[in-house]
């Protein structure tokens, strides 16, 4: 195993905060947890706090000795249920087979991030954010239970052992399950912080025993998603949206829609015209029967080609959008004189297209609101809902359900479809439940895409084949309404390749369009890794160097041991340098995304001009591996998700209208195109980092780099297969 010690791994969204810890017996269930004091007061105003005031609640132990972990992060497929449960169970020494997980209610005071007053799941931060907090919660519960046993048996707590939810006195052989000690344990006051296990003592974390807790429900059709909610008196709503971004309702004729038996009402809301009906199919038929005239005065009318030309011109300074410098080093004077390598990239808008299209159940009765939905950032959804109904954000009740995929789509700053559902439920009133359903077409046309980007690079290389000067212009919408366009250049800014280049001049140009951009699995890395990793292979090729060898020098010179280690491990496992059959080539990519470092090597060929990937070797450093099987699952899924986008992804606009609105015209990866993925996890003693996103952005450049070997041609745009 290579030495991978990195003294300062990046840990986003993670700061250590003082924990207030305690316990209480609520309804016969021992509640233990850690809460964040004095933050999020504004956002939590109106929130109902359980009797155990001041204490959060992460752990419930029931009379059958089962342990329920309350999960503050949303389960959208990434396996966070398993990871967080394992962290608690490890310190608690619970019986893993009796550990269950339930979703936390929306309550930023109890379940906010340890980094600030926001409850949500984003940035692959779930495990990292909860690591210290849930270990403390587990250790606290363990302390209270052990102390309770010690009091009962009149022995010292230090003499007792705990295993699989049973406390044992080795001297006498007496045993007691947690469940027998609940009342007594509730009286114990635990210290504010407790010593935690040395990772070497872990018996659950990092083992193959950490498995998903939700598989059984998901293979029997019994997992309950938002789409599945059926309530008494519930209405189903669909909304006719403007076909163009920025379009508004001018007028509508609902006479035909209202003739349909089962259509209850038709009315205008800010985002379009809502049809509410007794059931889904009737709502759809009602919507199909609507005639709506749209006001396109402020709508985006351009086609994809128009936007590309605009972006291309912008990158060359030919439009009135001024660039903002995101990176500058060295003296540019004269550095770009002489022969320059010019490389451009055209990367498209990408839809998330989770299998469960957007949906929400809302009940509004005056200022009382309840949402049942796969809320990804509960605090933001509460605030946006409160703005519609005029209540306090903290009073918005949210029952968070598992998401049928998200990939960033459900973590929207405007809470677009949730707000839409709240408007409808407010109009309906009386607390009557409304289930808003988006069709696949609504979803694909609904925006919040990974923004398209255009990159223009001017690079000068020295005699050794390495860049001496690197000018980098990126054109991309910003994901944040104010402040610098940091996500747009995430992965370019701070890249080891720029760090290794003496003169760097990086600018980001930020167009404002009516097409809303959004967070898309791996965010900035989803485009920047393609740009940086494919560029570096082109430079290596010009220098006549092996791309892995070329990279090694850079990582050594820029002190990137984690990059070097994942690269070396992947190269070793892939048999880099050993010949493949004719027509096949290997391509490599390395990236760091949300604190996790990944290298992937893909085996690629061309069949009828279309890239085919048969195998991907992945090496990852995500700190301490909490749930090994889920790390592998995320790598497999990430490769497939990234490959799908690389091969086919791209929202096509004609006259401002999205053309590819369902899977027939917007193809995605299917099983016959999915490669074998082999994941190798570096041993690490560093705190864990996330796995939901970092494996996504490497496959596109890995393929491009293999094609560079096979064809000699660089890839200047994605997707590889343009429809």
């Amino acid at each position, binding site marked *: 195993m290579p030495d991978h010690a990195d003294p300062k791994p990046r840990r986003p969204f993670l700061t250590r905060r003082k924990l207030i810890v305690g316990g209480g017996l609520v309804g016969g269930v021992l509640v233990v947890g850690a809460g964040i004091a004095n933050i999020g007061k504004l956002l939590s105003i109106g929130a109902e706090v359980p009797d155990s005031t001041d204490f959060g609640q992460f752990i419930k132990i029931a009379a059958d000795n089962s342990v329920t972990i309350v999960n503050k992060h949303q389960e*959208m*497929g*990434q*396996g966070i249920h398993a990871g967080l449960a394992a962290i608690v169970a490890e310190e608690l020494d619970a019986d893993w087979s009796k550990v269950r997980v339930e979703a936390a209610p929306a309550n930023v005071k109890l379940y906010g991030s340890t980094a600030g007053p926001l409850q949500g799941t984003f940035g692959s931060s779930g495990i990292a954010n909860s690591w210290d907090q849930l270990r403390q919660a587990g250790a606290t519960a363990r302390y209270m239970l052990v102390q309770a046993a010690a009091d009962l048996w009149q022995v010292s707590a230090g003499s007792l052992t705990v295993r699989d939810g049973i406390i044992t006195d080795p001297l006498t052989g007496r045993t007691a399950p947690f469940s027998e000690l609940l009342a007594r344990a509730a009286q114990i006051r635990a210290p504010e912080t407790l010593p935690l296990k040395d990772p070497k003592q872990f018996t659950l974390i990092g083992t193959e025993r950490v*498995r*998903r807790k*939700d*598989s*059984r*429900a*998901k*293979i*029997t*059709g*019994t*997992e*309950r*998603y938002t*789409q*599945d909610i*059926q309530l008494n008196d519930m209405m*189903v709503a669909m909304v006719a949206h403007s076909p163009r971004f920025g379009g508004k309702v001018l007028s509508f004729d609902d006479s035909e829609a209202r003739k349909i038996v089962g259509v209850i009402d038709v009315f205008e809301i800010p985002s379009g015209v809502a049809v509410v009906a007794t*059931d*889904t*199919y009737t709502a759809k038929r009602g919507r199909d029967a609507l005639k709506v005239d749209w006001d396109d005065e402020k709508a985006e009318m351009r086609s994809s080609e128009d936007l590309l030309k605009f972006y291309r011109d912008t990158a060359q300074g030919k439009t009135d959008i001024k660039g903002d410098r995101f990176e500058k080093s060295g003296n540019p004077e004269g550095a770009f004189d002489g022969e320059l390598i010019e490389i451009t990239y055209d990367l498209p808008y990408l839809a998330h*297209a*989770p*299998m*469960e*299209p957007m949906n929400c159940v809302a009940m509004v009765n005056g200022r009382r609101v309840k949402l049942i939905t796969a809320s990804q950032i509960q605090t933001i959804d509460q605030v946006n809902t409160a703005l519609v109904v005029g209540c306090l954000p903290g009073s918005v009740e949210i029952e968070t359900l*598992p*998401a*049928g*995929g*998200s*990939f960033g789509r459900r973590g929207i700053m405007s809470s677009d479809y949730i707000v839409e559902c709240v408007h409808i439920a407010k109009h309906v009133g009386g607390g009557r439940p409304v289930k808003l*359903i988006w*069709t*696949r077409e609504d979803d694909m046309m609904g925006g919040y895409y990974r923004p398209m980007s255009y990159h223009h690079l001017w690079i000068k290389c020295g005699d050794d084949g390495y860049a001496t000067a690197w000018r980098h212009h990126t054109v991309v919408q910003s994901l944040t309404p104010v402040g610098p366009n940091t996500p747009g250049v995430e992965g370019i800014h701070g890249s080891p390749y720029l760090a290794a280049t003496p003169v760097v001049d990086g600018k980001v140009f930020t167009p404002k369009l009516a097409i809303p951009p959004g967070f898309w699995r791996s965010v900035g890395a989803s485009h920047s890794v393609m740009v940086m990793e494919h560029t570096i292979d082109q430079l290596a090729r010009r220098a006549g160097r092996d791309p892995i060898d070329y990279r090694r020098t850079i990582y050594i010179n820029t002190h990137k041991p984690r990059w070097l280690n994942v690269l070396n491990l992947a190269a070793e496992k892939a048999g880099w340098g050993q010949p493949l059959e004719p027509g096949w080539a290997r391509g490599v990519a390395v990236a760091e995304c949300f604190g996790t470092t990944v290298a992937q090597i893909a085996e690629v060929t061309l069949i009828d001009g279309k890239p085919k990937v048969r195998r991907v070797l992945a090496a990852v450093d995500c700190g301490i591996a909490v749930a090994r099987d*889920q790390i592998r*699952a995320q790598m*497999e*899924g*990430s*490769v*497939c*998700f990234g490959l*799908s986008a690389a091969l086919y992804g791209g929202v096509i606009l004609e006259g401002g209208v999205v053309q590819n609105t*369902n*899977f*027939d015209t917007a193809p*995605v*990866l*299917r*099983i*016959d195109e*999915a*490669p*074998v*993925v082999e994941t190798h996890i570096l041993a690490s003693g560093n705190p864990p980092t996330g796995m939901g996103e970092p494996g996504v952005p490497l496959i596109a450049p890995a393929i491009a780099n293999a094609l560079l070997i096979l064809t000699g041609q660089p890839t200047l745009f994605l997707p590889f297969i343009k429809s």
Partner: protein
Amino acid sequence: MPYTIRLDGKQHTVDVDADTPLLWVLRDSLNLTGTKYGCGVAQCGACTVHMDGQPVRSCSLPISAVGNSEITTIESVSGPEAAAVQASWLKIDVPQCGYCQSGQIMSAVALLKEIKVPTDAEIDAAMSGNICRCGTYPRIRNAIKDAAKSLI
């Protein structure tokens, strides 16, 4: 108008329009929500059920076309192939978000009823109508092979 369908071993009568897709009859009329809506145009397979043992996309099958055929959904799928598929799915922890998995399992069960030990190409042919956006495809393939092995 009323339609009587044979579903999961029982007769059910529903009062819906003739063109109502079976999917919405299952989900909205009968509250059998294990069968999912994903695309509505028979492209993603999330709505896969069995009609007389054959996998069909219920989102594009009007209730009037069901006739006297026996419909089986994820809620009641049974038999040695179903047991083997679900056991292997669990053993390998196939699901991620899980939303497509009802449909994946219905397609896989139909495949194994048809072909005892499917080749990779036969798995591709039978399963390529089922999309998984989480990318559980490698595990689906492994789980089908594992289930086939357990049935021998």
